[in-house]
């Protein structure tokens, strides 16, 4: 099979809206783009356990604690689905973990912000998982089979995450004056970073062109961001909280909300490693990895011993 014929076969799959599977021929750039995007997505789930894991021992009720535990466990699961999808592209789990720990691979900037009050648990579920869902619903239609299947599974599980967050916000917004203030404060801190989760403007997004052409991404950053804002603005109204953007206003002509400009200088700073928690997040991952080394070693030795006995 020559290169030209391979490329034609690949493009035929893409144009027919079929899925590319691991053993199909694919351009090297397609593979590279997927490894970067899916692993970044997986790393975000893994690092995303930290801000919430921090609150498991301090959840205000047994019900809240059980829910939070289940949610953090789901995030570990989502990370593993995505790692498993990335590995079908020919990269090993060892390499993936190493890329995260050495900073070669990125994760979502949102997880470099601290979760300082219980209302942050509500806001993370409502906004951060809400933004993730908008992105992931779109990615269910991605052209790479294993990624698409992981997204379908994740979307099914994720809607509980957003609903439990919105429920926390509803209770706090309708609670005491202090709780209300806490809810508003959390919304004020998380709103803009949530909008940054969709990435740079389309005009400033170097990877978008090819990713759209190859149907890795099915919607542009700006379209997804708008979709999220339209949904969330109405949800804030329902519970009487105010989105911290004086320019946020319904535009009848566009059929969308208009909104103010994002602070891209802040986004760049956090991407480059200068967010409030970047160092802490990776240091924690490294420590957990190191602390678990004896478990991996013991299990390997036990497996080897049993294999020897059976032989």
């Amino acid at each position, binding site marked *: 099979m020559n290169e030209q014929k391979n490329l034609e076969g690949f493009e035929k799959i893409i144009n027919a809206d079929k899925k590319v*599977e691991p053993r199909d021929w694919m351009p090297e750039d397609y593979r590279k783009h997927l490894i970067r995007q899916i692993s970044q997505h997986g790393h975000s789930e893994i690092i995303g356990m930290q801000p919430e894991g921090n609150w498991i021992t301090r959840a205000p009720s047994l019900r809240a604690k059980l829910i939070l535990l289940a949610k953090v466990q789901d995030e570990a699961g989502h990370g593993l*689905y995505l790692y498993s*999808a990335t*590995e079908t592209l020919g990269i*090993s*789990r060892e390499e993936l973990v190493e890329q995260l720990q050495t900073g070669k691979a990125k994760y979502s900037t949102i997880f470099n912000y601290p979760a300082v009050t219980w209302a942050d648990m509500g806001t993370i579920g409502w906004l951060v998982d809400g933004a993730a869902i908008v992105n992931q619903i779109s990615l269910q239609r991605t052209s790479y089979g294993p990624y698409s*299947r992981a997204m379908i599974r994740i979307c099914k599980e994720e809607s509980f995450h957003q609903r439990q967050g919105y429920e926390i916000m509803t209770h706090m917004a309708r609670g005491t004056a202090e709780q209300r203030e806490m809810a508003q404060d959390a919304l004020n801190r998380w709103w803009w970073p949530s909008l940054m989760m969709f990435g740079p403007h389309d005009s400033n997004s170097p990877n978008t062109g090819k990713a759209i052409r190859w149907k890795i991404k099915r919607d542009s950053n700006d379209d997804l961001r708008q979709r999220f804002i339209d949904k969330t603005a109405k949800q804030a109204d329902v519970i009487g909280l105010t989105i911290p953007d004086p320019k946020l206003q319904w535009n009848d002509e566009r059929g969308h909300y208009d909104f103010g400009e994002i602070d891209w200088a802040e986004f760049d700073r956090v991407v480059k490693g200068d967010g409030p928690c970047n160092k802490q997040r990776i240091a924690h991952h490294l420590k957990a990895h190191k602390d678990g080394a004896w478990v*991996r070693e013991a299990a390997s030795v036990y497996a080897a011993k049993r294999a020897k006995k059976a032989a």
Partner: protein
Amino acid sequence: MADIKDTQWPLWEVFVQANSGIPHKHAGSVHAPDKEMALTNARDLYTRRNEGTSIWVVPSNSVVASNPNDSDMLFDPANDKIYRHPTFYIMPEGAVGI
């Protein structure tokens, strides 16, 4: 034991049967040092919401797969055997129950 290299363990493919009476379906993969832990990990990862009644785990390197480049050779011959389908046959007017 210091000579043991840190590892994420071998890869296993996971197949889950959602209900009795239907086939096991590929769900994804897990890493595990042995078959017991592969099963435990698969259960934790792929059946958190009653998705299954049975799980199979198979070492990934034991799976033998066809090559996509051979698809034409492997699957095209079925195209010209339409007599394998019941609609190929012409039944006489008035025949029922066939």
